[in-house]
């Protein structure tokens, strides 16, 4: 009986102390982590729309303008499930919503050496200029057509996840533009 009480006391005390320390540290570092995330998004946007001089954040959309205040494209976040965890990326589309300007992966937890290759330039570059009037598709052999990419060998699920996340998000973004009557 005495031992049972001791067990409960020790476990409670250790857990309370642990959660106390962790919540204090979380409070102290939350802002910094958020700022880092924002910085990551900003630098990703400047990668997918390199010519952008000014970026205006409106709701979920980042409008990118050039020097003459002409719209270069719209960037937005896209998130979904990958193979090893969530994948988060920034996509950019042309002002007419007919072409993908590029993608940049901000967060991913794919298998190192295999799925993690979605972060490689050659893979991301495939998305530049893809036709998005149709859904993007993927193939394991040589891509054909204007909206197809080649999946990474040994990482088909990761490649497919990226394609699905983009397709779904583009559809949502298009719907949003339609409802606004743009």
């Amino acid at each position: 009986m005495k031992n049972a009480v001791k067990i409960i006391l020790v476990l409670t005390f250790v857990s309370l102390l642990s959660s106390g320390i962790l919540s204090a540290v979380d409070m102290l570092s939350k802002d910094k982590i958020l700022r880092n995330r924002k910085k990551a998004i900003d630098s990703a946007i400047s990668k997918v729309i390199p010519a952008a001089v000014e970026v205006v954040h409106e709701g979920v959309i980042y409008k990118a303008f050039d020097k003459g205040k002409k719209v270069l494209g719209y960037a937005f976040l896209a998130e979904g499930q990958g193979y090893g965890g969530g994948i988060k990326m920034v996509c950019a589309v042309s002002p007419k919503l007919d072409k993908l300007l590029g993608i940049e992966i901000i967060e991913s937890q794919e298998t190192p050496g295999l799925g993690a290759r979605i972060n490689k330039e050659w893979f991301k570059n495939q998305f530049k200029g893809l036709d998005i009037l149709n859904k993007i598709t993927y193939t394991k052999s040589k891509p054909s057509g204007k909206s197809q990419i080649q999946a990474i060998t040994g990482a088909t699920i990761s490649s497919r996840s990226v394609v699905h996340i983009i397709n779904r998000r583009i559809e949502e973004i298009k719907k949003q533009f339609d409802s606004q009557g743009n």
Partner: protein
Amino acid sequence: MKNSFVKGLWKEHPVFRQLLGMCPTLAVTTSAVNGLSMGLAVMFVLNFSSLVVSLIRKVVPSQVRIAVYTIIIATFVTLADVFLKANYPSISKSLGPYVPLIVVNCIILGRAEAFASKNTPVKAVMDSLGMSIGFLWGLILLGGIREILGNGSFFGITLLGPGFEKWVVMVLPAGAFLVLGLLVAAMNFIEKRKTKVKVL
């Protein structure tokens, strides 16, 4: 006391002799920088959890000791994870899920159970310092070899020029097993030679 410290560096090296903590050892050592940061993260977690485990060793009932150790280790791992996310986001990104996975690294629970829970705080920290320095040099060596062969660079600095054909397999999982196997073999070879010389 000195022995508690020294044994982790070579004789009971956690990676090459005890073959503990294989998950981060194999998975993150795709480059020297990753090996270094993983080694430092483990060093932080291992030393502080050993210290705390040793300090409370007489209070914790033996039935729940593993649960208590796990909470302590998880707390320090979360601290390390948050620290990296806040201050070194790019390192945190490249280590990915392997920082939170330090919780289940058997070197840490192993040292807590086998050593820290039975020894004084000073001895416990000596032991964990030795073990973590051993782990650190092991990971840097492994990451360094794989980075040089697989990417032609060391700590991100290009060593081998464009004429060098990169052994891509070295940065893939297979390369981790190959290099680890060769290093364990080399270590065994050196140890055997040492004992032979003594006999002669």
